């Protein structure tokens, strides 16, 4: 079983939105038709996006931390949006675990978007079908693209390599190693959706210094030849002298 997924390292993400724009660029240019933008240069611009970068503030001033949080479809292993679809337009591919929408079957009833706790699905106002992240399914298998670039657009564009892409069911893959060894976690685990995408937490490198490490025990400047009357018992020093 293969389950393709993204692993997003929140420790590295700088919130530059490069993944947002590259995702929009790639997915609005494909055969499936544009991601509709309504009033893009007007007063209330709106449009269809597969990916957003959000920003959170953790803690209270002055002990705050800024967290940039890219958010897209998590390609759940038990996706609640798939069984509710009345037409079968929403489906999970057996071969690679990608959750997709068949735009030709979708009736635009929005029920799948109600059934996704993450809000990963958007109704395209122009095409009136449900759209969501496809993991760039029209890119990752395209043999006309150099092999090292057969990755989702967001992964390619990330300047800090905060986004990893691979098979989370292969225990030796880079994504599985990252999840296992860097504390990868899932969003809203309480609903049992088993998201395939994982997030790596913010990590702080701390040096732990104990008090005795600040004092050099074998300091040659300390006067070791002076016998202190600290103990009546013989010590190793007595034997040496």
């Amino acid at each position, binding site marked *: 079983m293969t389950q393709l997924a993204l692993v997003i390292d929140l420790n590295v993400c700088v919130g530059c*939105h490069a993944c*947002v724009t590259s995702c929009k660029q790639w997915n609005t240019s494909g055969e499936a038709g544009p991601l509709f933008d309504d009033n893009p240069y007007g007063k*209330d*611009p*709106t*449009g*269809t*996006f597969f990916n*957003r*970068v*959000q*920003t*959170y*503030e*953790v*803690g*209270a001033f002055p002990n705050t931390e*800024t*967290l940039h*949080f890219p*958010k897209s479809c998590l390609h759940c292993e038990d996706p*609640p949006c*798939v*069984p*509710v*679809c*009345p*037409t*079968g*337009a929403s489906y999970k591919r057996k071969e690679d675990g990608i959750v997709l929408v068949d735009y030709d*079957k*979708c*009736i*635009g*009833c*929005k*029920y799948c*978007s*109600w*059934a*996704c*706790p*993450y*809000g990963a*699905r*958007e*109704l395209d106002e122009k*095409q*009136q*079908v449900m759209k969501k992240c496809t993991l760039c399914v029209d890119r990752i298998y395209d043999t006309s693209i150099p092999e090292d670039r057969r990755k989702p657009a967001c992964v390619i564009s990330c300047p800090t390599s905060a986004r990893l892409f691979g098979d989370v069911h292969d225990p030796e893959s880079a994504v599985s190693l990252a999840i296992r060894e860097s504390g990868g*976690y*899932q*969003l*809203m*685990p*309480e*609903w049992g959706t088993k998201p395939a995408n994982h*997030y790596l*937490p*913010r990590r702080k490198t701390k040096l732990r210094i104990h008090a005795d490490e600040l004092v050099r025990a074998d300091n040659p400047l300390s006067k070791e030849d002076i016998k202190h009357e600290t103990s009546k018992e013989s010590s190793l020093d007595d034997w040496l002298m």
Partner: protein
Amino acid sequence: MHPAFSVIFLTTLLGVGQGLFLALFSSQAYSVVNVLPAQPGDFYALGAFIALIFLVGGLIASFFHLGHPERAWRAAAKWRTSWLSREVIALPVVMGAIALYALVNWMNIEADLYGLGITGQVALSVGAFGVIATIALFVCTAMIYAAIKFLQEWASPLTVANYFLLGTASGFGFATAYAALNAPDLVPFYGGWAITLTIAGLLTRIASLLRNARIKQISSMQTAIGVRHNQVRQASMGMMGGAYNTREYFHGRTADFLKSVKWIFLVLVFPIPLLLLWAGLAQNSASLLMLAFGVQYVGLLFERWFFFAQANHPQNLYYQVVG
């Protein structure tokens, strides 16, 4: 959630149609065993035809909810997993059964199907099938909402009870007014049940309001982004303009507005129709009984609006601050 008027009209109109059919069938079934006076076939036929009109109205309303209504036939495909698909199958079955029931009664088709020697066997056989389908449709409609476990306000058996009781109450209410015009003998029967069902609906709706008032949301900002800290605040949702995420999942009104809608429906659906039904039954006034139904139906529109608006979608956790 953002209440869509297409779904509000769909669910309320279906409820009236289904309730009206159940009322007609039950009175006809009682008349066969001489509990109630029998009516001519035209009475049941016309009533069933009106029920059909309510159902067709609901069906038309539902199309306004779809992005691609011309593909609606595809929605029957996934009945094994989707309650919406089951509803899409149940609705035409109910409509077909009610249409057949109307036809059988209108043409007075009689046959001694079971060798019992009583009249109305064909109509009641068709009607019994319609009753099963009607109840199935009630369950399907309600389960569309009750089946989404993280919409905690909906994920309860009370949702099914409310859809059934409020639908049948309004249907029996309409049947009371209909009988006042065409079959005065049946007015006490329909009116009694309209009152009983309205009171039962009041109890279950109050129960669900109480349940929802003390509901504890399972998801939080902490589980949404996976950061263990008591103070997590969104600084930016990642966009300045709105998106589907900001439009579809929130009613966009104040808490006070929501509260006022709650009191409007609590008054319009329960006490006023009960009073009007009581007065209409006492004075045998068709206009008062029709008014009772009209007030209750308008109240149900408010009730359904509130039902949708009250549901808290966990995705809203991700869309708190424009930026």
